[in-house]
């Protein structure tokens, strides 16, 4: 199987109908790495991304019999992944202390402060800029630019008109360009 939309639906129905474990594993194999990349870009942590990747697949197979085929399997898969990422951030936000800007740090030379500074210094500026995008722009950018989804697919996943998906992408690129501003040329 090459991973076409038809293949996906055939494999899913083989699992839903017959409990075919080979079909289960083949579906995971076809989508595991792009899905992992997508989740990793959203949450930026390998360990959590792998856990979420597994959770997404398990939810997909748990609900396999509910899949109606109105949209493609890939659309469904990424809708579930986006929801899991949102839940992940909600849970994390409940737990963490609000992050502080570097200028707000108490610059006493303790070990923890030095780690914070080092972490900020190492942070990838561009990735950080992406994380600051409005959620819809960021999701559209990630689905289209990174994952290679067409705008029709993005629109299906995000449940919006195709024109809106295109506009979100356009604004995402322009926003990044503006955010990088004067340092954009140096950075790029």
């Amino acid at each position: 199987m090459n991973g076409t939309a038809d293949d996906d639906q055939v494999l899913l129905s083989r699992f839903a109908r017959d409990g075919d474990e080979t079909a289960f594993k083949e579906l995971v194999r076809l989508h595991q790495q792009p899905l992992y990349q997508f989740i990793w870009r959203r949450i930026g942590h390998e360990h959590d991304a792998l856990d979420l990747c597994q959770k997404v697949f398990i939810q997909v197979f748990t609900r396999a019999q509910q899949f109606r085929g109105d949209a493609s399997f890939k659309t469904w898969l990424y809708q579930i992944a986006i929801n899991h990422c949102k839940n992940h951030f909600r849970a994390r936000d409940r737990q963490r202390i609000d992050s502080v800007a570097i200028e707000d740090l108490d610059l006493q030379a303790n070990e923890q402060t030095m780690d914070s500074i080092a972490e900020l210094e190492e942070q990838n500026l561009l990735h950080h800029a992406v994380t600051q995008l409005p959620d819809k722009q960021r999701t559209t950018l990630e689905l289209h630019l990174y994952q290679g989804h067409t705008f029709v697919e993005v629109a299906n996943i995000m449940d919006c008109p195709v024109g809106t998906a295109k506009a979100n992408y356009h604004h995402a690129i322009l926003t990044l360009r503006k955010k990088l501003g004067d340092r954009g040329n140096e950075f790029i």
Partner: protein
Amino acid sequence: MNSSECDFTQARLTDYLDNTLEPTVRQTVESHLLTCARCEKELQTQRRLVDLLQRKKAPPLPDAFWQAFPEQVLAEYKTQRANTIKTTDHRRGFSFIRKWFATHPGGSWAAVLASGLLVGALVTVLLDRPAGFQSSPTLAWVNRIEQPQQLQQLVKQLSASRQSSASLAFARQAGEYNFFAGATLYVEALAMAAGHDGVTARQQLGSLQHTVAGILDSSQRQVMHELIKTIPDKVTLKPKLLNSFATLEKALQQAAIQQGPQQALYWETGLTISRLGLAAQIKDLNTLRQFTQLDALQQRLAKTDIPPGVLDAIGRIHDVIKRDTYSAGDLIILNEQVARIQLVIG
């Protein structure tokens, strides 16, 4: 340069780069770019921005990881489904035991039989296989990974890169095919996790404690408590852990013996059925063939007050075990009959 032409072009640069412009519009944009250095520069900036964005990728994981990942997801899927069912069964089961104790004071076959099963369950929770369980030469690790060393290396790589959940998951998977190797890997991975990832280590402990909460009596809980205390000790973890299982098993066995030969027999039965059930679940045919004395066990049990359903189930299991070859249907029968015994006793 004509400002309106620049505005027109710059508003379409994203679509131009994305190759989604209508041919006529694309031509207009290209014509303008040939004559406007400012728009051409902006195009190059955006192009490099897109290139840079596309280069951002997660750190690569070993090929062996992705080869094994579908199997891991499938195993986790099955575990979660089984846990959902077990949770329901446990609630029903323990209330059954409590009712039974209420009407049969002074100990019972159910209590001891359940203890035997419990040992298997405890070990299963932590190591996925009971201590003393034989390795399986029939299923080489290998339907998925050609060399066992590959899986071992993978676990060690994941541990070293502090991916605790993944390393523990694969160690458990290793244990499915070779108990001793898997147990060793699991303990090593857990020790690594305890060293750098307290959250995962605590989750493992929490899961273990949650599973046993409310099941053990006070003396058993004390043994279990000692067992759990050993886990975060990464220096002497493995020997303590294995020793604690032996201690727990011995304590339960002695408790059964003290209650008389009948209780000891129930203990033996519970442990036997638990181990047999695990062998059937992982299709460890060589280990299954070692359970050849079930007819003798059945005859000894027939002299006690054990329910006839348990005797019948043991007889059916024995009929399957003594066959020369096992079909998939045979293994299903084994699992069904083991489940039937476990359901009867609680």
